[in-house]
């Protein structure tokens, strides 16, 4: 008895000896922020969902059905525009909203994984002329241009006026017209947009594989595919697992592609459409139930990979390859395969971004080919008061969010890196979890939590508009990037430097400001810049909460809301594309700064 008491007592003593005021504050602030702006809202969603009796949804055949509706592919020979053609349209089969989202996420993840692994392997293990172009093309889809990229894909695959059918039928004169619509369209868009995430993760895993392991296997007789299957792929599994889980979650919560393809049979769209009805102050409890389903699925996926995306793992990966990577030159057959299949594929997946530029600079693009060059569209985004206001809004929210992120991220990472108290891995989990939390769930949570408990105050989104909440939504959702960058930097700063400073009498705070921050300044800045970029292009809370104040001259909506709204206006796509060009420019600037000016080589997992 006495022994245990002493153990407990001495543990507490040790704890409080170790925790000074600064560390305590640094621990409390992130926890407090996360409690109010993450845990609280999530708990409210749970509460609302269970009040409504969530099982009702599972009994509703439009949400869950074992009778498939629609057809996977429509194929028929028809007389169209004066000739007989074989029309092939991919549409997809519906089994109800919930099942569609799940099946779609799995399908997208599997296809993205296969593509990502192949591309990663080719780029990690082979050297060939023009490789740098391949590497660039493979990451182009990650340049975020929400809505307009899906729009370009939809236009590309329109079987009546799209570029692909035009090329096959009108240029090559083959009697075929190909189209991709509805469910299939969403899947294809997501695969094209997300596969680089898998590629980047697997790539960085592959270059971290100890080459001696592969050499040993080779000397024992394993070659080619066997070598790949038994050694390379299993060792790259961390990257593949992390990438797949993230793609899975992103696919579940993607709202842009369903909106563009007018495909209502997804969980994300159903939540979004209920937000449109929420302007009267009531959000249908069905939204809460759907949010819970989304959250559960995402958490399951996240649980599988939480070690791989933790701060510690990221820091290890970002330190980069420690050995010389095995690179070989492909034979003739390999080279042909690379240039004949891989290059066109990468050009194809980069087409949405190319299309964005075409839309931004063309006067008209109603048929398969664009017409006219103009800079009008770009000037419109400054002249149009709604659009310019949206740009200012996004910049404001992002700057404020990034400032908060810098402070909170620094505090949280420092505590996790330096404080030797139990339970820190939970804080690690908390701080990285927003990567995996679907933004729609946060949007729903914020709506319920703040319009209920903070009604009538500045935090009430229905009364005063969403600007305050959007800033915090951005902060919480984009915190992990900075936290990770800071943590990685702290790993490279030896704790002895701080201990020396503390020994000489400096307080923890002084040490932090004058020793630690200068040493990891570039990490903080890089992390903040990456967080900034992701704040500017944030979709989920922007198109739901962002619309709560209405759209008039002094509106509070961010860029992404305006992009969604303008898609259906006259000359809309051109203006949305101009905004896309703006976003791409910001992203390219940041990538350049972070990678070349600040020389922060990140295991940029594209998230």
């Amino acid at each position: 008895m006495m022994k245990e008491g002493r153990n407990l007592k001495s543990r507490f003593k040790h704890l409080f000896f170790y925790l000074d005021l600064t560390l305590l504050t640094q621990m409390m602030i992130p926890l407090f922020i996360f409690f109010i702006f993450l845990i609280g809202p999530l708990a409210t969603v749970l509460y609302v969902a269970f009040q409504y009796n969530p099982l009702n949804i599972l009994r509703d055949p439009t949400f869950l059905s074992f009778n498939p509706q629609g057809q996977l592919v429509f194929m028929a020979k028809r007389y169209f525009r004066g000739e007989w053609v074989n029309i092939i349209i991919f549409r997809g089969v519906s089994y109800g909203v919930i099942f569609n989202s799940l099946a779609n996420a799995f399908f997208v993840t599997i296809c993205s994984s296969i593509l990502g692994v192949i591309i990663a392997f080719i780029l990690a293990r082979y050297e060939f002329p023009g490789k740098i172009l391949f590497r660039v093309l493979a990451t182009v889809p990650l340049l975020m241009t929400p809505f307009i990229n899906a729009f370009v894909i939809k236009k590309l695959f329109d079987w009546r006026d799209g570029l692909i059918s035009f090329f096959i039928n009108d240029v090559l004169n083959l009697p075929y017209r190909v189209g991709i619509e509805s469910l299939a369209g969403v899947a294809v868009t997501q695969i094209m947009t997300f596969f680089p995430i898998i590629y980047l993760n697997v790539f960085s895993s592959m270059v971290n594989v100890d080459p001696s392991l592969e050499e040993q296997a080779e000397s024992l007789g394993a070659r080619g595919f066997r070598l790949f299957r038994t050694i390379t792929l299993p060792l790259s599994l961390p990257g593949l697992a992390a990438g797949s889980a993230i793609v899975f979650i992103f696919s579940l919560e993607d709202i842009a592609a369903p909106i563009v393809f007018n495909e209502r049979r997804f969980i994300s769209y159903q939540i979004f459409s209920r937000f449109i009805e929420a302007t009267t102050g009531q959000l249908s409890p069905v939204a809460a139930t759907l949010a819970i389903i989304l959250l559960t699925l995402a958490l399951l996926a996240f649980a599988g990979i939480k070690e791989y995306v933790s701060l510690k793992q990221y820091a290890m990966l970002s330190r980069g390859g420690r050995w010389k990577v095995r690179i070989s030159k492909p034979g003739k057959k390999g080279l042909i395969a690379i240039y004949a299949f891989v290059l066109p594929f990468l050009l194809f997946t980069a087409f949405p971004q190319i299309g964005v530029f075409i839309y931004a600079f063309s006067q008209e693009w109603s048929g398969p080919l664009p017409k006219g060059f103009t800079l009008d569209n770009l000037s419109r985004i400054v002249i149009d008061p709604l659009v310019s206001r949206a740009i200012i809004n996004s910049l404001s929210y992002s700057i404020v969010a990034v400032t908060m992120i810098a402070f909170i991220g620094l505090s949280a990472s420092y505590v996790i890196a330096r404080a030797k108290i139990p339970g820190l891995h939970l804080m690690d989990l908390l701080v990285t979890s927003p990567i995996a939390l679907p933004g729609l769930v946060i949007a729903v949570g914020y709506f319920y939590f703040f319009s209920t408990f903070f009604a009538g105050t500045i935090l009430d989104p229905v009364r005063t508009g969403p600007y305050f909440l959007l800033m915090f939504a951005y902060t919480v959702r984009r915190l992990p990037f900075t936290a990770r960058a800071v943590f990685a930097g702290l790993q490279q700063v030896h704790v002895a430097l701080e201990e020396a400073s503390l020994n000489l009498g400096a307080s923890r705070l002084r040490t932090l400001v004058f020793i630690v921050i200068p040493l990891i300044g570039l990490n903080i800045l890089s992390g903040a810049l990456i967080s900034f970029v992701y704040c500017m292009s944030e979709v989920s809370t922007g198109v739901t909460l962002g619309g709560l104040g209405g759209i008039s001259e002094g509106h509070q909506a961010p860029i992404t809301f305006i992009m969604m709204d303008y898609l259906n206006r006259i000359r809309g796509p051109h203006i949305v594309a101009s905004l896309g060009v703006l976003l791409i420019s910001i992203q390219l600037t940041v990538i350049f700064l972070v990678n070349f000016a600040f020389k922060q080589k990140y295991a940029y997992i594209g998230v």
Partner: protein
Amino acid sequence: MNKKALGKIQALLLIAIIVIALSSFTIWWLMFRPTGAGEEEKPSEKPSEKPSEAIKLHVLTRHPTEILLAARNAFLKSDIAKKYNITDIITYGLAPGLWVKYIKSGEIDVAWGGGPTLFDYLYLQGLLLPLTSEEVLAAIKEIPDTIAGMPMKRVGSDGKIYWVAAAIASFGFTVNHDRLKDYNLTVPKSWRDLASPELGKTLVDYGTPALGIADPTQSTSNTRMYEIILQRYGWEEGWKILTLMAANAEIYSGSSDVRDAVIRGDIAVGITIDFYGYTAKLVNPKCEYIIPEGESIVNGDPIALVNGTKHPEAAQAFIAWVLTEGQKILLNPEINRLPVNRKVFDTPIGKNRTDIYEAYNKTLQTTPIKFNDTLAMQYETVMRWYFRAALIDVNDALKEAWKAILTKYFAGELSPAEFENLVNRLAAPLTFKDPETDKTVVFTLEYAINIQPKFEKDASYRDSLISAWKSAALEKYKSVLQSVSGG
């Protein structure tokens, strides 16, 4: 090492200061500049106005921003604005559900645009004031009392005028002639044509719908059109047409989505309000707005003085301007609405828009249907949700059944009587179990009117009804599908 570290510290501190300054500035800016949604500077407290006091008018509206911006720019330059020292028009674009709350808060001066149903509701709630100033009455004299048999003014029981139409609109469909040609379709002339098997042939031939309609729970103009169809053809026949339309169509969330789909050629014909059609034609000359002859109505879109305004004289001056000088804005190529005041066509701008003038004359001469607004209001909410539950939410099943019927019909395997029979089964109003009384009932006009009060107030009653409709509809469509594929 010292200098380097110091330099870095200084640089970082400088960056931090700049960022903090920027953030504080933006927070201040966002919080204390007018944002147009809720927190506003209070209008002046004095009820009497001296011309020297600058006035800002607050306008509640459902008009899109193009109109609001054009109006604000033009009005603030006008003499009448200077006369009353009006320095700003602040607009609030809000959903109809929030209007009563905002008006009752006493912050609004003018209500502008939103359809006669909404304004009649406001009038009945006592939220509008009569228009009495000299200027506005003089302007009202230039507006006709009725157009195509529909009222352009709401006269109260006291003989005073409570709202005036500031623009007119009709309802019909916009077609894309290129796409019609692609699909080998003739130009539809009536609502019934939209429900025809001919239009459905596109579904069978290409797997793609040729028609586009919108969800009435998210579009007031589409709600209007469905009500027109129900009153033109009667309840039973009307629901048959609506059901087949939903079977023939791609469903969109908003009316502007429908318009855009027509412009892009995603669909060949979409039901739209007239000015969407005129705009479509400007953007894509292959598009054309068609008013179904003898099957449409002309709506006046009202403007009114709000009860609780602190600036009645200035507000009425603005209203007078909208009805006279302000009519020119409607002829803007991004707006394309029909004016209510004929005099605007004598101005240079008016003389330029011959297409609008033509459309205006056509609209005046159109034979409208006899439309009973009061009757429509009695079942409107129920109608919208029934449409959504029975036709939209289970649209996949409806399309499967309809496609099966059409495939056999075009293959010549159905006699006219069989076809008629199947269509009646598919499209007639639902027979279902009322969740409250547990009795089997038919969705008749009387039933809809009876349940509307409870439907609007009791959320769980509403949810259970919607569920009942969905399951009944699903059952019906499945059984029709089985009859067709089985038999």
